[in-house]
């Protein structure tokens, strides 16, 4: 499935799940697939644990993709990351060090119901697919549903809005499942990375307020080096900075929640492009987008391993 699976096309949810099942069987030394719960519509929420198996304590990095259904380049990157990790583990000293020293928890499709819906019905669907008996509109913005300044500025109380925060924090089973997992493992999760599209940005906390994080120095230098590394591949410029001032203020985001809950290094990527194709990034741009982003992620990981407390 490394050479037979096409990482340069977008895959349906079923294809991605089959890919995970296969990797779980064929790479037992580096991959373990497990479910952390079920989506609103009853689909399993799969996570890949990637890294050399070790009895000794290892820290971890969490990576999630596909929080917003229509951002298809995001799950494509998660698959690319796993592929690159497996392909280069033996040949690339950096990747070997990463997988030997850390575990990576990769959630290729966070919003499984929304992703499936964007494949079958509405290509531009964003939210989850939960229903409420009180309202005619479905879905909650899974990046406004976290318990951090929940439903304040930058989120909407209206169920029909795309930035709807939900009836209460962690109302979405997908959010609840990931939050539960991260709470349980927060002592050894060192970094949280979340992938979205589109804007070409690398963001760090805070989203919900204009303020500087206590460990700004290490986070900012990691981001600075990462965007430089990214640009070195094809010359693509990414802006970086706190989400509130670089993008806009939004409350209830996963990145802010992870940071508030003790994960010291949290980032959100907004991948290509800046509007020419928007959510319709052509498949021929999957490879360059993922290649440059891969370098940025490796850069961040190594910086955090070597330079940050």
């Amino acid at each position, binding site marked *: 499935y490394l050479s037979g699976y*096409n990482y*340069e*096309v977008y895959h349906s949810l079923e294809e991605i799940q089959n890919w995970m099942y296969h990797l779980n069987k064929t790479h037992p030394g580096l991959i373990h697939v497990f479910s952390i719960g079920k989506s609103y519509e009853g689909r399993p929420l799969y996570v890949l644990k990637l890294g050399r198996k070790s009895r000794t304590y290892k820290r971890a990095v969490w990576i999630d993709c596909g929080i917003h259904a229509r951002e298809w380049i995001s799950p494509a990157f998660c698959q690319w990351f796993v592929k690159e990790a497996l392909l280069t583990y033996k040949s690339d000293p950096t990747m070997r060090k990463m997988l030997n020293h850390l575990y990576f928890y990769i959630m290729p499709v966070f919003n499984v119901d929304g992703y499936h819906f964007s494949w079958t*019905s*509405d*290509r*531009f669907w*964003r939210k989850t697919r939960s229903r409420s008996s009180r309202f005619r509109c479905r879905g909650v*913005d899974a990046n406004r549903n976290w318990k951090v300044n929940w439903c304040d500025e*930058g*989120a*909407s109380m209206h169920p029909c*809005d*795309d*930035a709807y925060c939900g009836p209460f924090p962690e109302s979405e089973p997908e959010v609840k499942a990931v939050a539960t997992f991260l709470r349980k493992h927060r002592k050894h999760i060192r970094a949280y990375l979340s992938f979205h599209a*589109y*804007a070409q940005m690398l963001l760090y906390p805070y989203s919900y307020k204009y303020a500087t994080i206590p460990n700004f120095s290490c986070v900012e230098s990691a981001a600075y080096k990462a965007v430089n590394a990214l640009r070195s591949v094809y010359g693509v410029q990414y802006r970086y900075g706190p989400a509130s001032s670089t*993008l*806009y203020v*939004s409350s209830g985001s996963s990145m802010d929640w992870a940071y508030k809950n003790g994960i010291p290094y949290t980032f959100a990527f907004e991948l290509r492009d800046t*509007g*020419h*194709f*928007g*959510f*319709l*990034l*052509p*498949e*021929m741009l999957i*490879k360059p987008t993922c290649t440059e982003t891969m370098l940025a992620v490796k850069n961040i990981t190594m910086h955090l391993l070597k330079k940050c407390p």
Partner: protein
Amino acid sequence: QLYSNRYAGDKVIRLIPNTEEEANALKKIYHQLKVDLWQPSSISYVSKGAVTDVHIPQNGSQALLAFLQEANIQYKILIEDLQYTLEKTSSLRPQRNRR
């Protein structure tokens, strides 16, 4: 045809309101026309100087464009026909696949 051709004639338009008055006017019409905002994620973010990319269905695009012209709000059409772009980007696959 992908998605039963439902996006035929839909457009994606980029606007950057120059004043708060323009931003407020855009928010109002976005609500009225029930647009799909690509950027930012919420109508509440629409403000002076902020880039907004809006996906407007075919039956609303004439009304929006007429409004923009009357209000003298600068705009750029990013995607002229969303269905066409959807079909085209789906066919832009790497050479290896075609072989």
